């Protein structure tokens, strides 16, 4: 296995790993939203501005979970494609070697068709992989967008929390947890993008 193939396997496998962490964090945001809603309800008028924010937080968490679920399915397709490309490349190399070793054999020329076919299959796989990586990077960008939105919501939450009197601490804790989660999502997704960007279709 070449170093490039190894890197490709590692890059694709790391997506699933990074995204499973994102999924955990997104579920934590969802819980934080439910918690915030309960606090805001108890706080009544003192947390009036906070109530619609909890709905935003919840919606954002749900969308992130949905996006990550889809990306995970896509990452699995990408992994299968990597295996396929690896097998096709190995076959092409073996076929070329067989053709070289068969030089002088009566039927040596008949090997040309399998060699050509293997080369085309391998190149198809490589092109498909690059196309799929580009699409996956687009989906990851959508998750990044959600993470940025979550940070804006966290900033607004802090402002609204400051008006909530005795509920200030509880609501600020919610805002902090949303902000922290947004950071984690941003960092993990950014690592996925860096790992994949070298395979992007140029």
């Amino acid at each position, binding site marked *: 296995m070449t170093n490039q193939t190894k890197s490709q396997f590692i890059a694709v496998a790391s997506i699933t790993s990074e995204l499973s962490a994102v999924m955990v964090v997104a579920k934590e945001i969802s819980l934080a939203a439910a918690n915030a809603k309960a606090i805001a309800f108890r706080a009544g008028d003192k947390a009036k501005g906070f109530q619609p924010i909890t709905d935003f937080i919840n919606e954002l968490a749900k969308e992130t979970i949905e996006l990550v679920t889809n990306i995970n399915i896509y990452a699995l397709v990408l992994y299968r494609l990597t295996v396929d490309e690896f097998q096709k490349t190995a076959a092409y190399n073996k076929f070329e070697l067989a053709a070289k070793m068969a030089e002088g*054999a009566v039927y040596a020329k008949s090997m040309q068709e399998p060699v050509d076919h293997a080369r085309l299959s391998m190149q198809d796989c490589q092109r498909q992989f690059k196309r799929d990586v580009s699409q996956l990077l687009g989906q990851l960008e959508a998750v990044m967008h959600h993470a940025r939105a979550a940070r804006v919501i966290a900033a607004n939450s802090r402002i609204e929390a400051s008006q909530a009197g005795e509920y200030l601490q509880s609501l600020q804790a919610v805002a902090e947890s949303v902000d922290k989660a947004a950071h984690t999502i941003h960092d993990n997704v950014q690592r996925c993008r860096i790992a994949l960007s070298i395979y992007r279709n140029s």
Partner: protein
Amino acid sequence: MKMTKIYEGSHQWIMFGRDEGKPGNIVDTNQYVVRTANRCLLLDPGGAELFAPMMAAVLHHAPVDQITDLFASHQDPDVISSLGLWDQALTNAKLHAPAIWEGFLRHYSCESIEYVPIPDNGGTIKLESVELQIIPAHYLHSSGNFHVYDPQAKILMSGDVGAAIEGPDSPVFVDNFAAHVEKMRYWHQRWMPSNQAKRVWIERVRNLDIDILAPQHGRMFKGDDVKRFLDWFDALQVGIAV
């Protein structure tokens, strides 16, 4: 890869083996080809490491599009781990292999090749006018195991039965049976699990008219050495690891 023609009549049998380029840490294997006018059958085509030299060697005898049939005596990697590569090279081929190993052998990848499952009681492989018999050899050593008998050429391809591990320079035929015995003893005692299976196989094979017994490793037996081998194997206790 050394090539030895072992039968020439209406069709040919060619033995391939003693590959000098093979990595030293993998077991040496014999591959056999049955060649008719327009078709070619590869018997136990070998491991993935062996694909390129084996394909190159076969091209001395047949073009790629006439390699129409593969046979795997059982599921071991030295027998058939090259399947995924043959599968990509051959567009119109069949793999004749034990039915019970189908789901396992497909792990090697078998997309374009048609898997022809061999039932436990054996069957036949027809190559143009040549009809080869598939002889059950279960538990010798694999639980689903077959050998191939050609009544016209009087050759029995006997898989791991009769095998010995030897160097790449060793002759292709046994030339001194008494001296060869020690090279086979541990192999048969350790790899073959069942005395009962061995007896059943010997009984079945003694009814065949065999000129050459052709194992997947080591040297082939011809003439009187075939009977010597059967007598020796008959008297041997196998399954010694328990």
